[in-house]
């Protein structure tokens, strides 16, 4: 039977595919873990930088509204109206230009029109407005033969100007409707006259954007997005061939026995991939530029043209060079994990998953390159490309963006070089995975490895993401449910399951060890001091904007019984978060990176775990102290106590407004005292830890 054979083959192929664990992980599981992390990051960044154009008031130059204060009022709701003394004069000039544009025919040279438009744009910029509304109102409905006119000057390639134009049009529309209604009432017995009332106002719009600008506005986002993706693919495939392909073909070993260092090899490969990526990006830039200009030319009457000015070309090239370097390094790092070309190709999807949303920022309206976005890799590239083609404020941040990309590229290259020095990465095939000393050490001690730690962190992040959201709680039980779910289900459960599944030594991993009674007062003093320092710094440096839901939850907690509130804030999160961060994560990172770097990394992850970019510095700072306490006391109870005291004071501040005010208005003396308090506490804990220092982090030498 044919169908039976087909089914047989299909079953075997499925089995084969499912056995390819690494590919499955990369193609199916990794995205599941990455999506939430990405989305969270992106919404944070864009949320912080995207301006709400509907709520913001754009400045528009107006003239001739005196006759109808009601219209002016309607406009003022969404706009800032600016009037000028010499309005009449300017109006006359602009009118002439606008009329010439309106009257153009096929014989009018395009340069003339663009020149006129440039002049108008200049006037707009001079007056610091995004649009102009000139009205001539002879009278409302009560003047039957009045000729009312409105002339709008707006820039279709400027998002602010477009928003303002929408608002002006809406107001004018409202005005027309109003006058029409009034006319109906006024002349209900004289029907014929209504004829005159049908057009209470004639609106004409003059576009001040040049054909060039319109072309850039239409094509720049696509060009920016494509150029980044092309640069990535340009780097990726050669990288996979030069690393995974070499391993597959057996030439990697040939190269490794030559008297060159691994760094030489990575740098050589990196240079080659970089060159290919730069050339790919520049070729694509050139071809796309030509295609778009041809496309614009093929649409006569659209008033669109597309060329790339030399300055823009130079800036785009300048940022593409570090971009290509970043992609080259990342692609080399990724492909070093693959054993074959085929496997290496699968690694493109997670990279794409990270790069794509960042590059998609190009498509978002009214997101401009600014001090924050200039630091976000890839997003800064597309925004710079856009800014260079469109002009605008963003171009001012070009240098920051270029330097940021150069920094990321250098960082990625450094990581890649260190990756290549690991045996397990170079010999993925063969009898067993080469295991370096640190991972073996971790295994022997029954601790998780650093990659297991990072994996668990991402799983927790994914859980938090998928379990969060939903409707805002309406009662205390709703609030309690949020805490229980986010702490127990999202943080504690994956951590414990992972520990069980990875067969780590629970006592060692989670630092379950008695806490010296003498440490208790020191920890409490340290927690209070840290709180004062962190809250004080947060208040002064970057007050966190409070989210809608957050305020509501806080309001309800403040009204809850103190015991319940303390349970939800000062017991539940400290226990769950400490077991994850100072337990599993810190243990997993410590063997590889050493105590100091592990504490710093854990603190950073701890900050990220709070899903709020504005709170990362404060949480991470507290995390550093928490990690130090965990290391010094060698007990998870040390950091849980610390965390509890810290959270308890914050919780009580909700309940007792006086305490909150006190925390908000701390002075210099309080900071000084807190600094001394923290130093003394840590010093005391250090002293306390010393006597049995020889056996390391409370871990007796293992019996192999």
């Amino acid at each position, binding site marked *: 039977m044919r169908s039976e054979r087909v089914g047989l083959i299909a079953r075997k192929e499925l089995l084969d595919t499912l056995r390819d664990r690494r590919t499955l992980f990369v193609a199916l599981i990794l995205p599941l873990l990455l999506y939430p992390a990405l989305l969270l990051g992106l919404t944070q960044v864009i949320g912080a930088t995207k301006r709400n154009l509907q709520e913001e008031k754009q400045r528009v130059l107006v003239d001739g509204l005196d006759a109808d204060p009601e219209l002016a009022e309607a406009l003022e709701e969404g706009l800032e109206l600016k009037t000028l003394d010499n309005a009449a004069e300017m109006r006359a000039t602009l009118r002439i230009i606008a009329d010439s544009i309106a009257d153009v025919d096929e014989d009018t040279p395009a340069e003339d029109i663009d020149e006129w438009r440039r002049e108008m744009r200049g006037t707009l910029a001079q007056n610091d407005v995004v649009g102009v509304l000139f009205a001539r109102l002879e009278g409302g409905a009560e003047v039957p033969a009045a000729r009312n006119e409105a002339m709008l000057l707006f820039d279709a390639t400027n998002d602010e100007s477009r928003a303002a134009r929408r608002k002006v049009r809406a107001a004018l529309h409202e005005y027309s409707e109003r006058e029409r209604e009034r006319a109906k009432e006024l002349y209900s017995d004289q029907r014929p006259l209504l004829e005159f009332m049908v057009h209470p106002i004639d609106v004409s719009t003059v576009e001040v954007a040049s054909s060039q600008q319109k072309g850039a506005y239409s094509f720049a986002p696509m060009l920016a997005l494509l150029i980044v993706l092309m640069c990535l693919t340009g780097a990726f495939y050669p990288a996979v061939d030069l690393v995974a392909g070499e391993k597959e073909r057996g*030439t990697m070993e040939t190269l490794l026995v030559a008297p060159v260092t691994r760094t030489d090899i990575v740098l050589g490969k990196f240079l080659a991939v970089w060159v290919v990526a730069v050339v790919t990006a520049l070729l694509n830039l050139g071809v796309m530029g030509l295609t778009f200009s041809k496309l614009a030319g093929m649409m006569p009457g659209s008033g669109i043209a597309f060329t790339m000015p030399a300055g823009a070309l130079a800036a785009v090239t300048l940022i593409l060079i570090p971009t290509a370097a970043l992609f080259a390094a990342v692609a080399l790092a990724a492909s070093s994990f693959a054993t074959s070309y085929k496997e290496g190709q699968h690694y493109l999807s997670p990279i794409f998953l990270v790069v794509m949303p960042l590059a998609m920022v190009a498509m978002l309206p009214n997101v401009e390159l600014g001090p924050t976005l200039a630091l976000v890799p890839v997003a800064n590239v597309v925004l710079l490309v856009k800014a260079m083609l469109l002009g605008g404020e963003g171009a001012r941040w070009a240098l920051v963006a270029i330097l940021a990309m150069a920094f990321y590229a250098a960082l990625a290259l450094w990581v890649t070089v260190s990756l290549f020095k690991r045996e397990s990465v170079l010999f993925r095939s063969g009898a067993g995975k*080469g295991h370096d000393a640190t991972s*073996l050490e971790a295994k022997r001690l029954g601790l998780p490895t650093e990659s297991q730690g990072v994996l668990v962190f991402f799983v927790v992040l994914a859980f938090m993401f998928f379990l969060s959201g939903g409707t805002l709680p309406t009662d205390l039980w709703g609030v309690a449910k949020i805490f229980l779910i986010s702490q127990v289900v999202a943080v504690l459960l994956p951590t414990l399951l992972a520990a069980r599944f990875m067969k780590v030594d629970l006592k060692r991993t989670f630092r379950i060890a008695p806490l010296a009674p003498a440490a208790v007062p020191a920890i409490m003093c340290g927690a209070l001091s840290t709180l004062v320092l962190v809250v004080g710094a947060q208040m002064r440096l970057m007050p966190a904007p409070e989210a809608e839901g957050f305020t509501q939850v806080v309001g309800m907690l403040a009204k809850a019984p103190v015991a319940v509130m303390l349970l939800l804030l000062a017991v539940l999160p400290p226990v769950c978060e400490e077991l994850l961060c100072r337990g599993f994560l810190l243990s997993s990172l410590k063997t590889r990176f050493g105590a100091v770097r592990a504490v710093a990394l854990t603190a950073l992850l701890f900050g990220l775990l709070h899903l709020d970019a504005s709170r990362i510095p404060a949480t991470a700072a507290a995390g550093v102290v928490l990690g130090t306490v965990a290391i010094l006391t060698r007990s998870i109870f040390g950091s849980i106590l610390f965390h509890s005291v810290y959270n308890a004071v914050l919780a009580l501040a909700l309940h007792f407004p006086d305490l909150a005010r006190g925390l908000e208005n701390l002075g210099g003396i309080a900071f000084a005292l807190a600094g001394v308090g923290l130093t003394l506490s840590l010093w005391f804990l250090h002293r306390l830890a010393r006597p049995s220092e020889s056996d390391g982090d409370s871990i007796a030498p293992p019996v192999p």
Partner: protein
Amino acid sequence: MIVAEGLSKIFQDPRGGGEFRAVDNVTFTCEPGRIFGLLGPNGAGKTTTLRILATTLVPTEGRASIHGHDVVEEATLARSSLGFCTGTTGIYERLTPREMVVYFGRLYGLDNEAVATRTNELFDLLDMHEFAETPCGRLSAGMKQKVSLARTIVHDPPVLIFDEPTTSLDVLVARTVVEFISDCRDRGRTVILSTHIMSEVEKLCDDLAILHKGRILAQGPVDEVLADSPGGDVESLFFNLIDQCEVNASD
């Protein structure tokens, strides 16, 4: 000269969480002008041992030196004194034999002129001129192996490592390789050769170590080692040792 002292290499066991000693306390010395044979079944630890000598793997315990250079401390110097050829060391299919050999000659520090002379010498020696400009991807297995051999000795190293060099070659090509290896000995090089083919050992080796599950079961000059053999040949010695080893293990 190759010296290995107490070499061990621990991997993570692919079948579980435990560790796996691929090489376990291996000690031996290879003298110049002699061929040292490393005989063992698949998975005995031959390749791992040779990779440690070639500096591509770092030993978990013990130390080794190539031509007086420590493989960990002076890895680059050790590599310069070393030619490494395996049945699986690939060649660049998109390069021609000449480009391939010149590339490695330059990596080993020869200048352009020296490398051109040396390439021609090697092509004479191995009779490779005919296909010197054909991309390696289009060559037959025998031609490819010649490219590999030329690549191995382009810098004329004092120490040579051959890891199962005749695996997957037909008899004709295998004979070229065997002749090539014995020629290296005749020119005073230190040669170490791993194989699971008994006849190769008898034909080529001066010294012998039998490796099983990462440990050396017997070693010494071939005739001395064979003196203990019940049948007087490598094969019966080999099975005898492995049987003993299994019996010991089950006790």
